[in-house]
Each structure stands twice: as C-alpha cells, then as structure tokens.
C-alpha cells in the first residue's frame, strides 16, 4: 500500500516536473552570475606559475583572481556570523596564506595555488574556557605556529602538538591596558609586551620550547591614549612631537630614555611600515611623512602631500630589500611611488591617469606588482571608498589603462526595483495611432489614411534597415551592441534593474547582459529598515516608460547620515541622471508609503511620509495632487500600518494631514516585531477560485489589506536562558491581521524555532522555520478561502468591513531537507502562470517549488476525488530532483534574498537573487507556453513544407503521364 502510494506520488511528480530542467546548451542563455567578496580589506599580488595573480580578501571571503581579467580562480567564503577575518598572513615563498578569525578563535592555512586547506587550528585553550584574545602573531617562516596572548596567558599553538606551549601570565598592577606580541625571527624569540598605565613590561620566550628568557619591567608615565607599541618601538604622541623608545633598549644593560622629536605639525597617528620605518599622519591635513626612527633621532625619508595608502610591493623575481608601494595624489592624479624600505631609497614613481576621486571617493587600498623585465610596477589594484575596485595596467612606457573594474558594493544589496526600457520607434507610432483613434473627432477615412501611411512608413523603415544590413554585410547577424541598447525587445523581457546597496550606491544593471549601465553613489545617505516601513521599500518607480511622452522617473528615499532627516533623490532609472535631490529635507519621518492610487496629471505616482506626529506628508505636494488624495480617500479608507516595539497600529487618513488611530494591538513585554509581510502592491490574480471535484467552487479569500505578522521573543541576556522554564516567553507568534479593520484572521504560535522566512501572495502565506527540537527545516502553507455564500461577496472590490464571515483557513506543513536562507515567489504579467515558491538554501542553490506541492488540500490518502482534481497525495518531505535547481552548478554565496518581476511575456518571470553574489535568471513556472520552444527547428518544418510542395508537383506530372499511358493501352 505504502509503496503504491509512493510510486503514484513519484509518477505525478515526474510528470509535472521533468520538463522544468535546463538543457545543456541553455547554460548562461537566460542567466548571469557576478561573484563578489565584499568590501576589500586586504590585497596583494602573488607570483603563481610565473604570472602575477591577485590574492585579496574582505571580511568574510578570501580569493585568488586572475589579474588580467578579474575572473576568480578560487574563493573561500567563511561563516556569515562572526566569521570575520581579523588578520591575514602571507608566508615566505607565497605558497601558503593564513586567515585568523578572532571571534571564532580559528586559524586556517590555505594553499595559495589551489585554495585547498592545509591546516585548521583552534585557538580555544584546552581548558575549554574562552578567553578574549588581545593580540596574535605568527612566525613568518612556519605557517603552523600561532602565538596568542590574552590577559591571563601566552600560548604558542602548533599543528604539531609537541611544540605547543602555554605560559600563564599574571597582571602585576591593576592599571593593565593590553598586551602585544613581537616575533623576532632572527633570534627565534617571542616577546610579550604588557602595557600598563604606569609602565611597560617585556617578557621574552624561546620560540620553540617556550622557555622564559628574561622579564623586564620599566616604569614611566604611559598614557594609553597617546602611547602604543608599534613595531619595535614604544611610540608616544605629544601634540607636534614624537616620543619613542626602542624596545630592545629596555633589555640592554644601559638604560635608554625616550627620544623626543619635533615634527612641526600636530600628529594624529603613527603606523609601523617596515623595521625602523614609520608613517606619521598629521591632523588637519592629508600630508604624511615616512620617517626612520633610530635610537637617537628621526630622519625623514619621504614626505607625501596627499597620502592615500601603502602596501608591500609584490616582486615576482628575487630582489634585494623590501619594496613598498605608496599611493598618493599629486594635482588630482594618483601617483605610485616605490620605496626600498631596507635600503631606504626611492626606486621610481609613476603617475596614473585614472580619475577616481570625483565619482568613487578616496582610494583606500592599493596593491602593486612589478613586471618581470622592467622592475617597475606594471599592475596596480585600487579599492575606492565606494567599494569599487580598479585594476590598472601600466605599460613599460608609463602609459596606463584600466584592465577591469568590479563593484563590490553589489555584495550588500538591500533593495531592487525594475523598470521597463524605452519603447522602440515602431511601438511609439503604434501607441500614437491608438491615441489618435480614441480621439473624439476622428472620421473613418482619417483613421484609414493614418493606418495606411504608418504601414507604408514601417515598410520603408524595414526596407532601409535591410538595405543597410546588406550594404554592411551584416544580414542575419545579431549586432552585439543591440543587447545593450536601452530599447525594449519585442517580448519586453530585457529590463533595467535598479539595485540599491547598503553603502548608498545605486546601480542600473541591464537584465539581459548583467552589464552595469550607470551607478550613483550617495555617501551621505543611510537606509534604515524603519524608514521603509515594515512592508515598504526605499525605491519607487514613479513613472515608467509606458507613456512615451514623459521621461521615466524614480525615487530613492533614505535618511541623512548626520542629521537623520529624510533624504529624497529623484533620478532617471534608465540613464541614471539625478533629476532632483535633497539630501536633507529638514524633517524626520517614521516611514514612507507608496500611494499608486493617486496619480498626477503628468503620470507620476504619489508617495507619502508618515511623520512622527502621525501626520501625512504627500509627494508631489502640489495643491491639485493633495486635492486628488482627499477626493479619493474621502470615500475609501487609507490606512497606514505602523509598528513599534510595543504595538502595531492602523492609522487612518481621509485627507492629507493628521490621521487618527483606527485600531492597535499590544505586543506584550516579551515580544517584538520580527517582520510584517504583505502581498505585493497591485498583484494580479487571474482565477478567483478553485473548482473542486464535486463541481463546487472554492473561492479564494483575496483581501489586499491582509498582513502576516511575525512576533519574536525579545533577545534576552545570555544569563537567563531557556532553563527558566516559562516557555511562553520563547515562542514565536504568527498572525494574519486585516490592516484596515485590525481583525485577526488567523493566529498560531511555534516554540523553539528560528531563522524564519515568509512569503505572502494571493490568498496564501508560506513560511519556513528551522525547528530546533526536531532539527529540520519546516515549510508551512496557510491558504484562505471564502466561507460565505458566493452571492455575499463583491467580486471586484474587496471591503474589510463589509466582509462579515471569517475566511476558511487551511494549513499544512512539510519538511524541507535543506537550510532555507531566503523565500520568494514568482509574479507574472497577468497572474495566469502557475506560482512557484523560490527557496534559497545555505548551500547556495535556488530551488523552485511549484505551488501545487504546497497545497494544504493535499490529502493523506489517495482519494479518487483528489486524483480527479489532479492533486498530489500528501507526503511529509518535499524533495525535488537536482535538475530543478534554477542556478544549476553556479551556487550563490551567502544568499539573502530573491525578488521576482513579471516579464513582458506571460510565461516568463525575471528573477534577481542577491547575497554575496548577484544572480539573475528567467524562470518559466508553466513552461514557455507562449513562444516556440528553443528546440523548435525551423528548417525541419521548412523542409517538410517544401518537400510536400515539390512532391505534389512531381506526382501531378507522374499521375498525368500514368493516366495517359493507361488510356492508350
């Protein structure tokens, strides 16, 4: 019985799913993936097999990239939570690279060439008690030896356990500040420098065995604000002079004193570069000086007027001395100067003709590589303040060009919008014709004339284009440039993606090619979830391209970083031009609300801010538009949902101005809002009901005012955890609330769950939870149907007040065998195409689950009635074939969300996914029913037709000949 059931299930599944996979030749046809690392914190060039490659890292990822084209050779992405890389060590010979994760207390060594792990070390002491690490160091010669110092101990941790050692440290006096480690490679010793407010103590150990060699304590006035240990020196800043003392001087028999040196400007900080060389940064200026500290004096090596950054210069061949590259700007062009820090001589400098300042902010980080033959830098890698990276190639004669760029800010996408491209000329004439025809005084003859003339002009246009193509010998060849043109394709599938990143970067990406067409950077803006409202967003397209008479217009809403006031930017979503911007409007707002119902005469959709005093500020705020709002909402109800830590409330407005609270729900002291999820604005639902097997219709409860509210228990202190036993405090609450009437339609609770993702569409809600008790991901679907009689409902306009009967709530849960990281659903042009729920998993896969698998009416037993309806019998585990994966083998690292947009074709859904990487694709939830399939072969049908035609001609001849012959018999 069980087996029959499973077989049946399998058969149904196979029949409906088998066709969903991509074909081998469709790889990359509909999709593109851009891999990122996040904001780059560290970079260096490496000599890999004779080529200089770039090894770089952000806080969460480490990668090796081809320095010629920027393609990633290997990449390691670390834990999203507390996985941050604190330090990176590149070992001699450049074959090993180590990452140190202080929060996780992990040390990982990777092979630079393959990216495979060599060793992993836990920095947690054997006693098991976690200690706060104050400083770490490694022996440059030996990758497998980490030195960790904390307040209570000094430990050397090695892969080879016999050479690990621990030395307990004590705090001499209660004015302890911190500890530092210095490794002396030459003498194979390690020094622990403990800083106190009253002095310094230095303990030396033998690197191999951990034998204590000496312990010196020296008392002097040591203020932790101005003094620090940098390299081999204790450096103190005193206004415009530098006081320093070499640590080695402490251990010597003769006691040395601090050396004071006046530098003329107020010093802000001091940085150790190499050996005795230090960079001194000054206050109130961008100037920086490279100085050499000796036991008695300072000596200036080089003074930079506008210093940017420095890095070790990678040299692919053996050379004497340590080369460092310093990036500084001179007369707004960047210059790279290489200095041999061992010989203390300037090697060369090279001006880069790259303008970064205006658009991308200050360059932050640089890595440079020297060419094999010349010994001059041939590649420079720069990261700008807006997180864009540039690889600049320098030829031997000093000419330079940008080899490739990448925008790492796209690893922090927070909002996405989509805008149609411009109508093509032919479409515009068609639109104009329609407009002409609908005008009042148009005679039949005029219309005919217009139609005829437009046909003629179209034909002429086509003929001209064909002639041009023939003349240029480009007939039937698709121009590469066409793909990037901002004109709609005939199916309107290629659109402009407007992507907002967390650092204020706005990018326009063409969906067909993944090419970044424009980018804007608003460095003074921040985007807090509160301003977008619990259900809103930061981006609105106010006017699309459908009306060809007006330019498209979009709005970006955020807050000013400094004042916290509302900032509004109007821009053209296709060209990326800022139309109007006010970075500080002078007022604060609770949330922004889009009001697509109120449209101005020039086709602009309105939006409004809910102010702190519960009043409404409408945009555009022309009197005519305010009137329009008042007129529309004097009859209908305009309700804004506000959520704070204590309560959720509905505020009603019947005109612009102050609103009044309609209803409110208290959250209680133990709960806070986890998320509020509404269905998408203006979502189209094609069929209002489902026909059951007994011919009755189950009508969908389509309430646009319904919101799904998730309340989470408040984050408690670590001390009072679940052991207190009061479980009510630790449960999540899920409820469906009508935002107009405040009525709770449905409510449920769940205990010991986490990582909740929700999608709300049509008459259903699907949410996923990680069930900590059963150790599995559970998907729950809630569907709502009308329970009243058909006659009671108004099919065109839903009213939250008129509907008296509570809806029928059906629900069902399933097990999903993966960790869900994002949940979304597909939207199509007319709402006719089947729905899919798109799951993003922790392993980076995107899985579409057909909505009919998440149907609460799936029955446990295989009933005849259910079979007649085509319903799949219930099975607790939803497992789908690997072929269904939307992104096949291109996994998306640290996936955070997916957004679907309807394509111009009913069958096509455009899906944008973001995480550390961004991935775009087209999905076809009901297959491509409205266009010929990709494997439709025109030549076969052409050949068959012509063969039939020729065959009929031949047989005609033959038959007449045969008939004649027969007649003569």
């Amino acid at each position, binding site marked *: 019985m069980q087996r029959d059931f499973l077989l049946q299930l399998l058969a149904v599944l196979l029949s409906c799913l088998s066709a969903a996979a991509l*074909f081998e030749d469709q790889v990359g046809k509909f999709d593109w993936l851009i891999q990122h690392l996040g904001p780059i914190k560290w970079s260096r060039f490496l000599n890999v097999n004779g080529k200089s490659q770039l090894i770089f890292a952000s806080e969460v990822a480490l990668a090796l990239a081809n320095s010629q084209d920027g393609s990633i050779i290997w990449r390691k992405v670390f834990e999203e939570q507390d996985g941050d890389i604190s330090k990176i060590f590149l070992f001699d010979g450049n074959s090993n690279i180590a990452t140190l994760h202080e929060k996780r207390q992990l040390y990982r060594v*990777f092979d630079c060439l393959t990216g495979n792990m060599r060793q*992993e070390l836990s920095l947690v002491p054997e006693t098991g008690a976690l200690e706060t690490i104050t400083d770490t160091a490694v022996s440059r010669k030996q990758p497998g030896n980490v030195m960790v110092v904390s307040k209570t101990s000094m430990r050397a941790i090695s892969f080879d356990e016999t050479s690990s050692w621990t030395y307990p440290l004590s705090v001499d006096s209660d004015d302890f500040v911190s500890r530092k480690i210095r490794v002396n490679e030459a003498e194979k010793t390690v020094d622990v420098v403990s800083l106190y407010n009253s002095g310094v103590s230095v303990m030396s150990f033998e690197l191999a065995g951990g034998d204590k060699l000496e312990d010196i304590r020296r008392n002097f006035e040591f203020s932790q604000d101005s003094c620090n240990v940098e390299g081999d020196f204790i450096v103190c800043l005193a206004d415009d002079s530098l006081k320093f003392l070499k640590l080695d001087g402490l251990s010597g028999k003769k006691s040395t004193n601090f050396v004071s040196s006046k530098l003329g400007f107020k010093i802000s900080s001091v940085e150790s570069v190499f050996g005795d060389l230090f960079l001194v940064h000054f206050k109130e200026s961008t100037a920086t000086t490279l100085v050499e500290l000796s036991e008695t004096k300072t000596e200036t090596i080089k003074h930079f007027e506008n210093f940017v950054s420095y890095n070790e210069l990678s040299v692919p061949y053996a050379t004497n001395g340590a080369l460092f590259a310093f990036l500084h700007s001179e007369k707004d062009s960047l210059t790279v100067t290489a200095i041999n820090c061992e010989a203390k001589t300037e090697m060369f400098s090279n001006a880069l003709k790259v303008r970064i300042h205006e658009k991308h902010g200050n360059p932050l980080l640089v890595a440079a590589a020297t060419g094999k033959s010349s010994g001059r830098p041939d590649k420079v890698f720069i990261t700008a303040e807006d997180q864009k990276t540039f690889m600049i190639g320098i030829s031997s004669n000093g000419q330079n060009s940008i080899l490739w760029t990448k925008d790492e800010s796209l690893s922090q996408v927070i909002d996405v919008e989509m805008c149609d491209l411009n109508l093509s000329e032919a479409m515009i004439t068609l639109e104009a014709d329609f407009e002409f025809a609908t005008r009042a005084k148009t005679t039949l003859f005029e219309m005919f004339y217009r139609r005829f003339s437009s046909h003629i002009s179209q034909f002429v246009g086509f003929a001209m284009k064909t002639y041009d193509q023939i003349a240029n010998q480009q007939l039937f060849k698709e121009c590469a440039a066409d793909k990037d043109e901002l004109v709609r394709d005939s199916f309107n599938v290629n659109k402009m993606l407007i992507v907002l990143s967390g650092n204020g970067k706005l990018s326009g990406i063409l969906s067909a090619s993944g090419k970044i067409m424009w980018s804007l950077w608003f460095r003074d803006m921040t985007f807090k979830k509160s301003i977008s409202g619990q259900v809103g967003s930061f981006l609105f397209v106010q006017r699309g391209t459908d009306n060809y008479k007006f330019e498209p217009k979009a709005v970006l809403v955020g807050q000013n970083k400094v004042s916290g006031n509302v900032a509004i930017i109007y821009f053209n979503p296709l060209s990326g031009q800022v139309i109007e911007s006010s970075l500080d409007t002078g007022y604060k707002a609770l949330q922004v609300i889009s009001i697509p119902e109120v449209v101005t005469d020039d086709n602009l959709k309105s939006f409004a801010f809910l102010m702190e005093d519960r009043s409404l500020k409408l945009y555009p705020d022309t009197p005519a538009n305010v009137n329009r709002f008042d007129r529309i909402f004097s009859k209908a109800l305009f309700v804004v949902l506000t959520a704070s830590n204590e309560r959720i409330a509905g505020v009603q407005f019947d005109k612009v101005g102050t609103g009044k609270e309609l209803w409110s729900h208290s959250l209680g002291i133990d709960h806070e809002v986890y998320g509020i999820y509404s269905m998408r604005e203006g979502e189209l639902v094609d069929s209002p009901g489902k026909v059951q097997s007994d011919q009755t219709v189950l009508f969908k409860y389509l309430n646009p005012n319904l919101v799904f509210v998730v309340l989470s228990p408040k984050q408690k202190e670590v001390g009072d955890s679940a052991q207190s036993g009061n479980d009510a405090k630790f449960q999540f609450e899920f409820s469906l609330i009508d935002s107009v009437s405040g009525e709770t339609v449905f409510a449920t609770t769940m205990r010991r769950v986490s990582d909740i993702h929700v999608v709300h569409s049509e008459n259903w809600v699907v949410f996923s939870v990680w069930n900590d008790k059963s150790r599995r991901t559970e998907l729950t679907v809630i569907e709502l149907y009308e329970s009243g009689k058909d006659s009671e409902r108004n099919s065109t306009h839903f009213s939250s007040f008129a509907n008296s009967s509570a809806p029928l709530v059906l629900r069902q849960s399933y*097990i999903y065998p993966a960790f869900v990281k994002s949940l979304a659903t597909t939207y199509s042009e007319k709402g006719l195409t089947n729905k899919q729920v798109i799951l993003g998993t922790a392993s980076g896969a995107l899985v579409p689950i057909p909505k009919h698998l998440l149907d609460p009416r799936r029955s446990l037993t295989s009933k005849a009635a259910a079979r007649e309806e085509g319903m799949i019998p219930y099975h607790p585990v939803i497992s789908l074939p690997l072929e269904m994966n939307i992104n096949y083998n291109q996994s998306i690292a640290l996936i955070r969300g997916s957004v679907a947009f309807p394509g111009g074709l009913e069958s096509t859904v455009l899906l944008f996914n973001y995480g550390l990487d961004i991935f775009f694709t087209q999905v076809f939830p009901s297959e491509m029913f409205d266009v010929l399939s990709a494997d439709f072969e025109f030549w076969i049908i052409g050949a068959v037709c012509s063969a039939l035609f020729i065959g009929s001609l031949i047989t005609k001849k033959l038959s007449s000949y045969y008939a004649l012959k027969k007649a003569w018999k």
Partner: protein
Amino acid sequence: MKMSLPEYTIWLFISALATIVTAYASTGVQSSTPVNSGYTIDGRALMPGIPASDWVSTAKVNVNGDAYQGFFRSDGTFTVSNVPSGSYIVEIVSTKFLFPPVRVDITSKGKKRARKLDLISPNVVDEDFYPLKIKALGPAVYLKKREQFRVQDALMNPMVLMVVLPFILMMVIPKLINTDDPERKQEMQETMSMFNTNQNQLPDMAEMFTNLFGAGSNQPGKKQVGGASSGSASSAKTKARKPVSK
C-alpha cells in the same frame, strides 16, 4: 511483567532520566551557555574512482547551514573546529557530487557519535561511523541533454510508423494482387462503389488543387495532348477510349 514497588520506582526513575538525557542531547545548543566550544568534527569525503584533489577545491562542509564551516584538505579530509556541544547536521556542499547529510551529536563531555539523518523521525538512532566517512551518492546532474536527431529514432517514431506503414500497404499490396484479372476487377469495382457512394458527393481536395495548379500552366500544347493535366478529364477519357482499345 510483575514488579515490586521499589523496582517500579527505580525503573520509572531511569526511564525519566533517559528521556531527559535524550531531550538534552537534541537541544544542547540553546539550552545552556556553551561551557566548551572547542570540539571538532572530523571526517573524510570520498568519491570512488576520482581523486579528492580534483574536486575538493570547490567543495566545503556546512554544519547546521552555514553556522559552522569546514574546508577540505587535498586528500579529502576535513575538520570543523570550535563546535560547542549539541546536535548538528553535517552536509558536504559540492557542485560536482552529491553527498548524503549526516547527523552528529556531541555531548557536553565531548563524546561524539554520528548517525544517519532521518528527517521524519528525528529521534531514531541509526548509528554511523565516526570519524565521518561520507561516500558520494554520485555525480550531480543539473542539466538535461538535448535530444539529437537520429534517423533510427525518427523512423521508430509512432507518428512516422503510422504514416509509413499504410503507405507501404497501399503501394505493395496492389502489386501482389493481379489487377489485370477482369473478374477481380469487377469485384473490386463493386466493393469500391459500395464505399464510395457517399464520398463521391464531397469535393475532392486533390482535384481542387490540381485544377488550381493546372490552370496556372495554361499551355495550349498541353491541352492538345488531351487535357491530361486534369484528373477528372483523364478518367473520362480512359472510359471513353476503353472500347476502342479492345
């Protein structure tokens, strides 16, 4: 089974203890602050026939989603470090091969055991080998192969067979039967007329088309030959000339 009262209480106590222990084991992470967060999960993944160095650079080990991660060494072994006591799901994420997930329990004293992952009944313990040894289920297939045009396939297609077989019957069988036999002919004509009584009234498509195409080639020479281009005419002529030829 009969039990004395003290025995019964002891039994009750033990079973209660067991339930508490299992409950604790399954909720270890949340229930208390981790005393020791330095446990490791060790293991090895293998795909028979393929050296580990070929595929491990793109693979990694996920423990409870991406909460803890381990990376592969070139020999296919891995270590996930600093995992506090609790119960975990260990998955090997590879775009090339499919691996079964395993559940690993670490007690608060650091004792580890592996068991097969059973999502439907998570309390069932089906112990597995620890340190983990995870064998690939097979290569991961994401893409469908496009069907290629092959003559054999095209011929064996039922639609083609449906067309070709009657065609053969029509062409071959008349050859086998001697149509010149007048008696047979008579017989056949009779049977044909029985079938064709109704159909004769319908317009003949072939006739229509030949008329259409024939009209296009309006050559006087052809007409002289005897209007052979028109099917109906030719059949009329054959009838008319029959007696002559006899």
